[in-house]
């Protein structure tokens, strides 16, 4: 396991444990709002001055086919975890498609750089451990905003810890290659968020709140497979 990922993981675990430990009013989704807002400000400064410019340069300087190849490579690993989670959620057919995609793309798609499975009509799906835990009945727990990581909750964050520990890239023994792949993975993810971010920028009156509410609703929608029960009126 890579020390970088491990330190992120343990920091996150610690944060989760600390925050879950002092969880207050269970009816409120965001009991740590002041803390989260502070973290959001930290994120905006660090991300806005360092990460975002790098991601923008990456998008400008790299030809589309190369970027698509990079996204496909990491997307192939995502497909593996989507398959595992669809299995855990009891969606056998969907999981079969996910594993079929990984098999095809890892071989004919050369380590996932190409996506022949999509061209053959096997659609990509997306789910994760947080959703699986939700389907098993785990509540979201308090909302958390983690700088350089983004919106999450105690439940979803725990799911991410599992994902980080199990990441196949972590098993690569050659340290420079492994770190390089971690960095590229992060950059690819960040670059994909640029357009969504510009929407947030112009749509929201309060970005922190808008992002939080959208995140929680989207996650809830996924846990209920697109048929969530009506929301309780908060007052």
């Amino acid at each position, binding site marked *: 396991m890579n020390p970088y990922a491990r330190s992120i993981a343990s920091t996150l675990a610690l944060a989760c444990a600390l925050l879950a430990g002092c969880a207050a009013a269970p009816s409120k989704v965001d009991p740590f709002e002041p803390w989260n807002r502070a973290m959001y400000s930290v994120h905006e400064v660090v991300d806005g001055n360092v990460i975002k410019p790098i991601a923008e340069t990456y998008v400008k300087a790299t030809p589309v086919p190369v970027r698509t190849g990079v996204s496909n490579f990491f997307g192939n690993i995502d497909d593996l975890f989507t398959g595992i989670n669809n299995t855990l959620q009891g969606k056998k057919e969907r999981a079969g498609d996910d594993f079929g995609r990984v098999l095809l793309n890892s071989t004919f798609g050369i380590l996932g750089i190409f*996506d022949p499975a999509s061209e053959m009509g096997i659609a990509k799906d997306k789910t994760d451990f947080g959703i699986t835990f939700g389907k098993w009945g785990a509540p979201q727990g308090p909302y958390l905003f983690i700088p350089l990581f983004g919106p999450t909750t105690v439940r979803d964050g725990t799911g991410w810890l599992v994902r980080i520990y199990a990441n196949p890239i972590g098993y690569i023994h050659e340290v420079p290659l492994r770190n390089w792949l971690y960095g590229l993975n992060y950059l690819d993810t960040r670059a994909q968020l640029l357009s969504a971010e510009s929407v947030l920028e*112009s749509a929201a009156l*309060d970005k922190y709140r808008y992002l939080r509410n959208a995140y929680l609703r989207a996650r*809830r929608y996924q846990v209920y497979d697109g048929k969530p029960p009506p929301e309780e009126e908060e007052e």
Partner: protein
Amino acid sequence: MIYRWVSLLFAAILALTVTAHAQAPAQEAPDVLVKRVAEDVLQTIRSDKDLQTGNQAKVKQLIESKLAPNFDFPRMTALAMGRNWRSATPEQQKSLTDEFRTLLVRTYSGALSNYRDNAMDYAALKMNPGDTDVTVRTAVRRPGQAPVQIDYSMAKTAEGWKAYDVIVAGVSLVTNYRDEFNDAIKQSGVDGLIKMLVGKNKGPTPK
């Protein structure tokens, strides 16, 4: 004699009106409308370099001419205001509708050039003959990414079907704004919200 002429005239006018109505095309079904507009807009973006590079004047014109007429902005605003709508004066309601419309058009303008590589899937519409409120389900596909579901809540109006909410991956635009509006009103009243929207709309156009 004059009576006969008048009655003939009326008959003629009546006949004209009836034929005019008969010749007007049957009202377009909501799913057909969504598909036509979406494909039209995508095609326009794909074939116009200025739109792809984000020429704001052209983007705005495309949205105003092709997209905006299919949305019921007053209804969207009323829904986003929720229970606060009735406590607003007619002048406040008008300002809110205008500013909210501007905000949505601006947001869409910023995002539109990203849509070039998108392809759309359209689900079969479940609708009974007398229905006046339906959900049109679509999905956006982008290369290398899982499809994103986009649903349009649509209602039948005197000028055809119009969308009053867009639900992206389970997140309703109107509901998300209801939280925003509610909190803003709690903090600084309806006028405070209007001021906030005006300020937001005067800000730099996002890229």
